[in-house]
């Protein structure tokens, strides 16, 4: 098992109190698994991704454990994590477009980065070039400034850079959101190829675009208001979701072939609760069409109702029992 996360809680410190952005997440990612992480903005999906690699203020570690390849990750300790960052765990940040130093040539930047991790640039260079070929970037980019590259090229450059040391876990945070459909497809396919070639063991792909996940992910985890709602294989989440939130989310996606005049789609009424003072019980209950008394007071646990199908919903787990 590549990644094991247990009861991870990360809050944001604000003047008004703690914002409970990630409130007790327990899940695992297998070796070779591409796990998609989906949810509305503000549901804590980026918080989860960032906390695994760079947990900095105003984020505050509250509790939980993270294991990567059966080794404990000291995510709350800034300095100790340096042994893991880039080598064992790596991230492609949300705005890869601005992730590179604008006043340095890309090759120079990479060599400095490697030196800071005590790795020889010269011996890594052949592998770097091989991977540039793989993503169809010319070797000349190493002699260019980031501004000379287009958005899609920068994205591919950052992908090569993040995965250069073959990390066990790669976190890809909204990497396709700013791209055009054709580039989006190429980048998404490249993620799969990097996994297939074992450059990275497993991946967490964070996005709000579920249709992209359907194309590339092995499993999908849906978050709502800082809590995990449902996790299952991609097919199950898309075709037979159990959690009412997942159902509504999937049914609100327009797909090619659906026209307003023929089939009117509906959104999810209401909006997520404020996480400064989240309501008791199930956090989705106010927008949930099937909520009942139990949801008001007791928080539904995230349990396995079928093999590899986890869900946090009283109604559904009762049906199962």
């Amino acid at each position, binding site marked *: 098992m590549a990644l094991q996360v247990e009861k991870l809680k990360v809050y944001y410190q604000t003047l008004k109190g703690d914002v409970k952005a990630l409130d007790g997440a327990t899940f695992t990612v297998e070796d070779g698994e591409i796990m998609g992480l989906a949810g509305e903005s503000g549901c804590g999906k980026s918080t989860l991704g960032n906390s695994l690699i760079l947990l900095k203020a105003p984020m505050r570690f509250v509790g939980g454990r993270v294991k990567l390849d059966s080794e404990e990750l000291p995510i709350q300790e800034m300095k100790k994590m340096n042994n893991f960052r880039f080598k064992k765990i790596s991230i492609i940040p949300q705005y890869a477009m601005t992730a590179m130093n604008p006043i340095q040539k890309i090759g120079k930047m990479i060599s400095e980065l490697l030196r800071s991790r005590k790795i020889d640039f010269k011996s890594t260079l052949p592998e770097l070039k091989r991977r540039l070929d793989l993503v*169809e970037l010319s070797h000349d980019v190493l002699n260019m400034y980031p501004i000379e590259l287009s958005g899609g090229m920068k994205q591919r450059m950052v992908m090569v850079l993040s995965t250069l040391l073959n990390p066990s876990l790669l976190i890809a945070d909204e990497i396709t959101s700013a791209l055009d*459909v054709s580039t*989006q*497809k190429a980048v998404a396919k490249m993620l799969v190829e990097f996994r297939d070639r074992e450059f990275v063991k497993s991946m967490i792909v964070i996005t709000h675009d579920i249709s992209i996940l*359907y194309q590339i992910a092995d499993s999908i985890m849906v978050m709502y208001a800082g809590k995990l709602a449902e996790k299952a294989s991609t097919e199950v989440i898309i075709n037979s979701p159990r959690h009412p939130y997942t159902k509504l989310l999937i049914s*609100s996606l327009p797909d090619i072939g*659906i026209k*307003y005049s023929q089939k*009117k789609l509906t*959104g999810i009424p209401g909006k997520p609760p404020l996480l400064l003072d989240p309501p008791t019980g199930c956090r989705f209950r106010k927008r949930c069409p099937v909520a009942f008394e139990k949801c008001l007071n007791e928080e539904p646990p995230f349990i396995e109702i079928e093999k590899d199908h986890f869900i946090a919903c009283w109604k559904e787990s009762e049906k199962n029992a």
Partner: protein
Amino acid sequence: MLELEKISKIYKTGTFGGKKLLAVNNVSFDVEDGEVISLIGESGSGKSTIGKMILGLISISSGMIRLNGVDIATLKGDALKDYYRNVQGVFQDPFSSYNPIFKADRIFRIIREEFFPKINNREWDKKIDSSLRAVGLNPDEVLNKYPHQLSGGQLQRFLIARALLLDVQFLVADEIISMLDASTRIDVLNLLAELKSRGLSILFITHDLSLGYYISERAVILYRGCIVEIGPTEQIYYHPLHPYTRLLIASVPRLDKKWEEVEVKLKAKYSELPTGCVYYERCPFADKDKDCAKRPTLIEAESGHFVACSHYMEVNERV
């Protein structure tokens, strides 16, 4: 209702404006009353530039835009103000459309000062009330709030409500839902469709084809400032003729179908044909021996369905 006739836009770039960039190249199409047209293209294809030219935010380099037969470039003073009563725009980022220091409903006050100086308070409140309800907002919940207290979807609907205050006939909607969450996105989209049924014409600018399909009757596909295909949405989606449109449709992530093994070419062919087909560099069917070196004009392939590719028949046979 709105006609675009051979419009082009040249931007000056470079340090002293010495270089020229042709952002929109000879684009013509028209929008009927109560019609939704989606303008689809990748970044840099000139789709937003067209929207801005219609709104008069930037000048037109050549060509003409006519609203009900009147050239909009000649409008001045009161006539121009009248134009804005009819034509309004809503843009991509609802968060930066507001001044964060002031309450969000300040945008209505400006409309009142400019366009309705004589109206009394009661009537004005009633007008705001009805236009907010028209976009599905509850006035008690959203008035008197600062922008950060409202969600993205609410802010975006606020802006549409602002346009509705003016009895608009034409709305330029420039990527208005790409920054919204999936759950609120569809509400805004449904709102547009509903406004359309009341007779509003909409130019729906997007890079997301499935959204375009959901509400529009006709679609315009832009590539590098040129129209490569234009026609009824069904035909464009189910029977695309231009190789670029095919690539776009095949790349859309879908829930009912996994991506086919269509390889996307990332590396562009080196273009030696500045006067030729705009898509030459990336086109898998292009050949120097064919007449791709000549810029293709729009050909009517089926009724109402135009394509700018001299070899579309051949392309369709080979796929």
